[in-house]
């Protein structure tokens, strides 16, 4: 029964990883940009929530209503004012610029908030749990996190599959020039994609901050887990991202159960195994011709 519990906790942890990974996967899918500041931006969102909680006396979940749109606006500005300038120059310039951005964000957070670790306190729900019978219990917070992750994925899938802007995302991903010839303003479209990405990562950052403590330097780990979830699930597949997050979460909790120091390592090993045995990921979109 202890093992069932471990796997259950891992699956729920996967919900959080999927939240981090979704935004990363979205912008890579739409504009082939690898955003190395993705993890630091989630931590920035968590600190913004700290400010909202401390200065306005808000509940962290309520603060999210402010922080997510703010991060989305930041994403739109970041893309249209900075990253769009790098379009058409290959894959390296965006990597260098977002790497620089990552360092800037970390140092700015250190300067403003010091190196102390922080936490968002939602007033009890983070320790409350629901009993499933037979000595099994799951925390409300991981359950809510997973539910929110699934809801966001369902919403995003609907947006990409059915709405005009979603078709434009896929068209621009297929063929940028022809998308422009059909009247799509790629630069504005990319701004919207980055806004969505950072809005979602803001949710991830705040849920992280409620679940555990974080510091100015917590971003790169989040980025790594997000990458692993995306690769395990398969690039370009949103549901694959959820499964990738779950696989990574289960690997980490099972590893930690075997020996407390093995959690993160086991996650990396499973990631490497997937990369070795099925490099396209578990749910890769069918390869298209040409």
């Amino acid at each position: 029964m202890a093992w069932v519990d471990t796997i259950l906790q891992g699956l729920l942890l996967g919900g959080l990883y999927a939240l981090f990974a979704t935004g990363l996967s979205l912008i890579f899918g739409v504009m082939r940009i690898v955003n190395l500041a993705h993890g630091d931006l989630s931590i920035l969102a968590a600190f913004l929530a700290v400010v909202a909680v401390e200065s306005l006396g808000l509940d962290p979940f309520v603060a999210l209503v402010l922080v997510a749109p703010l991060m989305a606006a930041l994403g739109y500005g970041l893309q249209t004012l900075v990253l769009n300038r790098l379009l058409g120059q290959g894959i390296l310039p965006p990597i260098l610029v977002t790497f620089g951005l990552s360092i800037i964000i970390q140092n700015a957070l250190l300067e403003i908030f010091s190196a102390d670790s922080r936490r968002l306190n939602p007033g009890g729900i983070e320790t409350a749990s629901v009993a499933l019978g037979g000595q099994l219990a799951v925390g409300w917070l991981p359950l809510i996190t997973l539910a929110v992750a699934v809801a966001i994925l369902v919403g995003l899938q609907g947006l990409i599959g059915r709405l005009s802007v979603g078709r434009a995302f896929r068209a621009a991903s297929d063929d940028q020039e022809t998308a422009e010839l059909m009247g799509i303003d790629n630069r504005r479209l990319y701004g919207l994609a980055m806004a969505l990405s950072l809005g979602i990562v803001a949710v991830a950052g705040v849920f992280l901050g409620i679940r555990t403590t974080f510091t100015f330097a917590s971003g790169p780990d989040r980025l790594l887990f997000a990458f692993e979830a995306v690769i395990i699930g398969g690039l370009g597949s949103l549901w694959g991202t959820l499964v990738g997050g779950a696989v990574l979460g289960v690997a980490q909790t099972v590893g930690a159960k075997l020996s407390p120091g093995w959690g993160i390592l086991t996650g990396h090993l499973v990631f490497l195994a997937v990369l070795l045995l099925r490099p396209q990921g578990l749910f890769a979109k069918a390869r298209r011709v040409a």
Partner: protein
Amino acid sequence: MSLLRVLRLSAFYGSFQALFDVSLEADEGETIAVIGANGAGKTTCLRAIAGVLPVPAEAVRFAGDAVGGHPAHDLVARGVVMVPEGRRIFPSLTVEENLLVGAYRGRPGPWTLARVYDLFPVLAERRRQPGPNLSGGEQQMLAIGRGLMANPRLLLVDEISLGLAPIVVRGLYRVLRTIAAEGTTTLVVDQDVSQIMELAQRVYCFRKGAVSLEGRPADLTRARLAAAYFGV
């Protein structure tokens, strides 16, 4: 006043000059043929009009506005729509989704999904299939239908018959007549002159990046056309 006026247009790919002082015009409702051999500059000229190539603003005037070098999406909003060479169907979209992307700007006009399906019944049959599943001729129909969904004032069709069977090409030319009857100004590029000369009101022949001959098809003899086309 002409709807489209290209005036002394020169265009470059890096240091290579592809167009030399090209001038051409299209009046509202006209069908214009652009012919010429491979590498004569036909596609480059279309790409400059459609906003894909950086050219001086005054080199391209549309409905009186200097629009040279404007971004392509802005030109689509004004009604300049290009059906690119090689069809360029979006591979991860279905047939119907490809058509809907054409309507992205939501320009008002006569063309709707239902009317495009009337024009190309085969697209209606295959609406749920991925674009790449279509044959070459069907893909060209889809590319033209996608362009029509933008409700163009000026439709640019590049290399309409390239790689297609003669019977398919005849079908496409019937469609061009329907589009012209709708009052849409069209500029059609083809290397095969036989069909296009019957359709167009005026023809421009390109050779080595310049216009080597222009006129009404009835006024052009075969010999003059051959000379302008091949330079012999």
